[in-house]
């Protein structure tokens, strides 16, 4: 029987079987996506899906709605990639704007939220601070995707697993010194990637 062999592919991969241009810059990928290159779109998706999902979660506070926002963000990227102009700014910033707009649209379509009048002035960060924090998180999470796997694993475990460095070393089966070396080299690489944030 051959029926399922001819069933539509689940994922958006190039029908020609061409290798995905994993070394291409974001701008180069967007140019390819504008020409309906699915392999380029998949690479762009892998690079940014965590950042987009993080942005959506931060704004919407609900994983289900955030998932929908991610779908809409990448649909918008696929549809409007041709409108990206490199001379107007970095591709990462353009992607952030498109994703943020999709998240905001999702936020608005969720309907009005019952407002409670607070008794005290809020200590929550204001819109400007929230926007800056969202942009910082976007760039940091995006930069993490660029780290070699061995460094990224160590950095993520070191910062967010709740494990001590010794426990990280035991978990990964590495000497403690190697864990510290990889943490340091990971941070140095992130510093190179995030140079603008340090100005």
């Amino acid at each position, binding site marked *: *029987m*051959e*029926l*399922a*062999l001819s*069933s*539509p*592919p*689940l*994922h*958006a*991969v190039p029908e020609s079987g061409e290798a995905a241009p994993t070394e291409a810059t974001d701008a180069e990928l967007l140019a390819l996506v504008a020409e*309906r290159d*699915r392999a380029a*779109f*998949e690479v762009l*998706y*892998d690079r940014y*899906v*965590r*950042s987009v*999902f*993080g942005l959506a*979660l931060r704004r919407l506070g609900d*994983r289900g709605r955030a*998932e929908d926002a*991610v*779908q*809409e963000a*990448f*649909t918008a990227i*696929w*549809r409007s990639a041709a409108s990206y102009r490199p001379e107007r700014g970095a591709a990462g910033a353009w992607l952030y704007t498109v994703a943020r707009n999709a998240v905001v649209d999702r936020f608005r379509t969720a309907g009005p939220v019952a407002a409670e009048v607070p008794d005290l002035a809020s200590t929550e960060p204001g819109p400007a601070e929230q926007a800056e*924090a969202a942009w*910082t*998180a976007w760039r*940091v*999470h995006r930069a*993490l*995707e660029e780290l070699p*796997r061995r460094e990224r694993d160590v*950095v*993520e475990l*070191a*910062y*967010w697993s709740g494990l*001590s*460095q010794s426990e990280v070393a035991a*978990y990964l089966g590495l000497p403690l010194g190697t864990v*510290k070396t990889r*943490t*340091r080299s990971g*941070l*140095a690489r*992130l*510093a190179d990637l*995030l140079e603008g*944030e*340090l100005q």
Partner: protein
Amino acid sequence: MTRERDFDELVGREGDDAERERLRRIHDLLVTAGPPPELPPELEAGPNLAMTLGRPPRQGRRRLALLAAAAISVGMVFLGGYIVGNRSDGSGPPAGRTIQLQGTSAASGAFASLLVEHGDTAGNWPMRLNVSGLSALPEGSYYAVYLVRNGKPWKPCGWFVVAGVHSGTTVTLNAPYELQSGDTWVVTKQQAGTSGPGETVLRPTT
């Protein structure tokens, strides 16, 4: 624990002041940003066709939807006739199908092939998974093979563990479900003590 001790514990005390200050700023950014979110399996599995086909502008959606519905209705009539006229034994999905799987960013060096064998009359679809490049997991964690329907991990078809990235393994699984055209499979990483599909580590190449 102070910020200073945190930083020193993480990177040690080596390096000159300028370099340490540079790393400390990144340390602060990481702390401020917080962890990247764990992706749900639906997003980890990669972009789906709806994204690449795109949604038409809102004004034209209704008209396009009506046109599409009409076209689909006509197409279904022809497709139904084609299937009835061509299938050999009256069953749904085929046997002998091999699905190639590749590692996601969570297991970038991994790959696998999944052979779906002939189903029996009771509705079992034995499968053989040959997998390489997956990491060994901590005790209590394991890998699961999930049947994917409509783009989402739907039902589990079996579980396995591996010795490490340098040792492949072959396991026999079963899909005791009524398979449909378009069904496929992913491999997920199941953490100890959790339920539901975990992070996707292998997904179909096509």
